[in-house]
Structure formats: structure tokens, C-alpha cells
């Protein structure tokens, strides 16, 4: 069953582009990555799903229901962590969480304690006295508190130290195991890489690609680094499938997608000092998508 289905969603802020013709869907139980640089339209898409803003055209359904018409009903089962967290400044953490819980039915209040402990969050502090990272933790606890079926995270890890990020990922995975579907937006690829099964890449308001993360990394691209004393080697690698070719001090490196034998044929003609063939990081693939589209 499709938990989220977005159909040609377009949002303009006056004349400014927000998103254009965004379409993708998220299956039940999936951890779906939503990735792109700042200003690409991630938050715009997410905030449209929550009907915080209204689309110029196109539509979206969550749990099979139109996200505007049935907005309040749908939101019962959504946990949302906004990218900008600034709750009521003069409230205590515990009061914000209780206030949040008061909007839902049958909330297991012991989860406040449990989640805060996991995230190492002091419940008795005032929001205004919290650091950015600790405010983010309040956001995380508030988002997971009512055991939502769909968790929408907009840049959740900014401000969290690596240890906390790991704890947070553990929490997310735990919720996912219990059956929650997760939409995870980020501009940091390594965290998406760690968690997600599929990913949608957004650039300048348009979806560039929706891909399975393993396929994206394993089956498509190799990073090849060649160290060689031979002259003019970059010219020899001027054929289809090679991208991001750069010359280094000792040789060249590039990304390759295609028949590996073609590369071996050329390599055979070279005097090599060293060769490394490895999986590219997502960053590199990502940059590749970006360059290709530019």
C-alpha cells in the first residue's frame, strides 16, 4: 500500500518557484530519503503534504486520502519534525510535550520519559534555555511521542552531535520495525545512505530521480583511481560512461558506468603504478546527477 502518493505537485510563491511537477510515492514500511541542496524544495514539498501551505496545482494523498481535504484526520497518524524548531519559548520541555500529546488520543505518556531518556533530554528546562541541538531533541520526541504511522523528518539531524545522531537513528529504526513509514529529508547524503531504502533527488524544485539506494550505489557506478607515469592518459579515457574525470598529481580519477572490460582494455596499454576501483560515495553520484542536469 502506498502511504504517500504525490502527483504533479507544483507550488509557486508568487512568481518564485517552490516546486514544479513533483511526483513520487512512498510505500508502507519504507524509509524513504528525500534529498537535495538547500532551497531545492524539500521543505516546500513536506509542508504541502501537511497542508501548512497549499499547492498551486497537483495533489497528494496520504494513507489514500487527499492531504488537504482530510488534513486533520490524516495528521492524527503523522509525526512531523520541522526543519526549524522553535517551540513556545517560556514553556518547560515537559509542558510542550504534554501539550503536544494532548492533541492525540490514547497517548502512552510513559513514552515521554522513555524517549527523553534515550535522547538525553532534560524535561524540566525551559525551551528558551535550550541549545539548538536540545531544541531539536524536543522536536524529535514530540514527533515520535504518539507512535505515528508516518514519520516526516525535515533535516532532523542538524545540530545533533554524532553520538546523538546515532541514538536518533536507532529510535527511527525501532519505529520503522514496529511498522512506521518514514520520509526523511536531508542534504547530507551519508545519513540517508545509512537509513534509507529508496531516495528521491530534488533539484531546483524538480525531482531528478527516484532510485533504490543500493542500485544507485552498487550496480551503477565505480570510482576508478589510476596512478600512472604515462603521458596523456586522460585522453585515452574519453569515451562513453566516464564522468567526473579529473587529473591528479599522479594520474587521474573518474566515475564509470558501463562495461568494465572497456576500461580494462585501456588499462592494459598503460604503465600503472597503482589502481583503485571502489564504490563511489553517494556524494559523488549526487554531484554527478547535478552536473548532468545542469
Amino acid at each position, binding site marked *: 500500500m502506498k502511504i504517500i502518493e504525490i502527483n504533479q505537485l507544483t507550488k509557486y510563491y508568487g512568481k518564485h518557484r517552490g516546486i514544479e511537477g513533483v511526483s513520487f510515492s512512498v510505500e508502507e514500511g519504507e524509509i524513504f530519503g528525500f534529498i537535495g541542496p538547500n532551497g531545492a524544495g524539500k521543505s516546500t514539498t513536506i509542508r504541502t503534504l501537511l497542508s*501548512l501551505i*497549499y499547492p498551486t496545482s497537483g495533489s497528494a494523498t496520504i494513507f489514500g486520502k487527499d492531504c488537504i481535504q482530510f488534513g486533520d484526520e490524516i*495528521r492524527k497518524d503523522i509525526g512531523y519534525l*520541522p*526543519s*526549524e524548531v522553535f517551540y513556545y*519559548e517560556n514553556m518547560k520541555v515537559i509542558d510542550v510535550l504534554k501539550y*503536544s500529546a494532548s*492533541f492525540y488520543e490514547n497517548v502512552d505518556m510513559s513514552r515521554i520519559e522513555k524517549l527523553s531518556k534515550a535522547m538525553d533530554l532534560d524535561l524540566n528546562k525551559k525551551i528558551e534555555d535550550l541549545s539548538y541541538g536540545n531544541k531539536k531533541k524536543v522536536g524529535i520526541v514530540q514527533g515520535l511521542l504518539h507512535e505515528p504511522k508516518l514519520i516526516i523528518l525535515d533535516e532532523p539531524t542538524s545540530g545533533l552531535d554524532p553520538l546523538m545522531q546515532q541514538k536518533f537513528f536507532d529510535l527511527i529504526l525501532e519505529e520503522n520495525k514496529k511498522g512506521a513509514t518514514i520520509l526523511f529529508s536531508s542534504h547530507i547524503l551519508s545519513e540517508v545512505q545509512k537509513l534509507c531504502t529508496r531516495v528521491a533527488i530534488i533539484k531546483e524544485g524538480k525531482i531528478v530521480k527516484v532510485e533504490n539506494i543500493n542500485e544507485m550505489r552498487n550496480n551503477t557506478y565505480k570510482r576508478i583511481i589510476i596512478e600512472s607515469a604515462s603521458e596523456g592518459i586522460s585522453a585515452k579515457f574519453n569515451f562513453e560512461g566516464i564522468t567526473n574525470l579529473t587529473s591528479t598529481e599522479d594520474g587521474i580519477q573518474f566515475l564509470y558506468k558501463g562495461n568494465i572490460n572497456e576500461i580494462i582494455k585501456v588499462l592494459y596499454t598503460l604503465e600503472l603504478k597503482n589502481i583503485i576501483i571502489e564504490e563511489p560515495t553517494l556524494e559523488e553520484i549526487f554531484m554527478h546527477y547535478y552536473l548532468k542536469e545542469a
Partner: protein
Amino acid sequence: MNIVLRELRAHMKSLIIWSIAQIFIILAGMMKYVGFSSSGVDLKTMLEGYPEGMMKAFGMNRVDLTTVEGFYTVFFLYFMLLAAIHAVMLGAVIISKEERDHSADFIYSRPVKRSKVVFSKMTVGVINIIVFNIVTLVTSVVMIAQNNDGNGLLPEVSLLMLALFFIQLFFLTLGVLLGAVMKTTKAATSTATGIVLGTFFLSIASDLSDKVEFLKYITPFKAYQASDVVLDHTMNVVSTIILVGLSIVFAYVANQRFYKRDLSV
């Protein structure tokens, strides 16, 4: 209900401050009366020297300033002004502050309809202006009683406070409308105070010259004449219908417009 309780608590402090301000203004006004009446100056002769327009502007043409009720109705203009500013600011802030404080994404991603949030906030606004109104009533009656042989003129002042409530309601819903329509809290509050002061000066201008007397029909500060209410025990029905009608329209439009609003982060 949870939103109502939360908002009541959030606005408690400001309500207390506004109430104290109102108490001080009433106190100061009545102290002036004490000074006036005990100075032994022949007020009537003194006032006869003033131009008629000015007398009218301060509502002194009809009432006898040497009596406590006369004095009170003249000063009521300023109690009304403060109540209006309180109401319009409250309305503008209560609806727009979530975006100002970046908590809009929090509150409006809960499983409630926007209209329910708006309605809850308006309810809190009405409770606040009622409390402010009661504070004004109690302070007034106590202060009048002290200068009137223990007679606080409760029935007269109560009727006046009912009139005041309709003016408060008008400005509250006007504030809510501005908060719902305008981009920022700041824009909403400055427009709101601008309108209050603007209409306040219109009401004074309408007294100053007969040529612009028609202005009294477009300012809520002229909806009721305090002297009529206190002296004749009558409340202008047409004004009441217009004020309540406009309040309903403002509230309705505010809700409609807010529903369609793109919330800023």
C-alpha cells in the same frame, strides 16, 4: 479545550499588565476629580470661557463636571481607548504569533482543523476582554463610590460596560482579521493601532466641527455617548447591531482567509 487553556495561560501576564494599566488610568482620572471638586474653583465660570468645540471634544457640553458621574463619563473616553488598544492588539497577536514565534509548523501540524485553532484563540480573546471589562467595572464602581457617598452607580456603570464590551468585541475581531490577513505580527499590530488611533481622532474631529460631524458614523468611539448611557440609562441599539454585525463579519472573514493562508516557517 487544550488550545484554550494553553492560550489563556500564555496571555495571563499581558492581561494582568493591561488590567493594572487600566486601574491606574481610572485611579488617576478619579484623583483629578478629587482635586477638582475640592479646589473650590467655580468650575462653571471657568469653563464658560472655553470655546464650544473644545468642550464638545471632551464631551463636556452636556455633563456637569462637578458631579462624579459627569466627570466619569468625560474620562470614559480614555478608558475606552485603552480597552480598544488592548482588544485590537490581543486579536492581532493571538492569531499571528505562531508564525512570529516559528511555532506554526508545530500547532498546525497537529490533528486539528485550522478553524478550530482560530475559534479557540478567539474564545480566549473574548475571555480576556471580559476580564478586562470586569476589572474596569469594579475599579470604576469602587472609585466612584469613594467620591459619591458610597454610591458606586453600579447599574449605570454596568450598562456602560456592556457598551464597552461591544466596542472591545469589535476591536478584538478587527485585530483577529488583521492578524489573519497580514503577513507579519508587526504589520498586523501596527496597522491595528493605527486604526484605533485614527478612529479615535476621527471621533474627536467630529466633535470639533459641525462640517465633519458625519465622521461620528464611521468611528466606533462614537457608537455610544457615555453621558447618554449614564444619565439617560439608554444604549444605542443601532450602534450595538452594527458593532456586533461587523464583529461577526470580521470573525467569519478572518477564519476564511486564515484557512487559505500559506503559513510561513
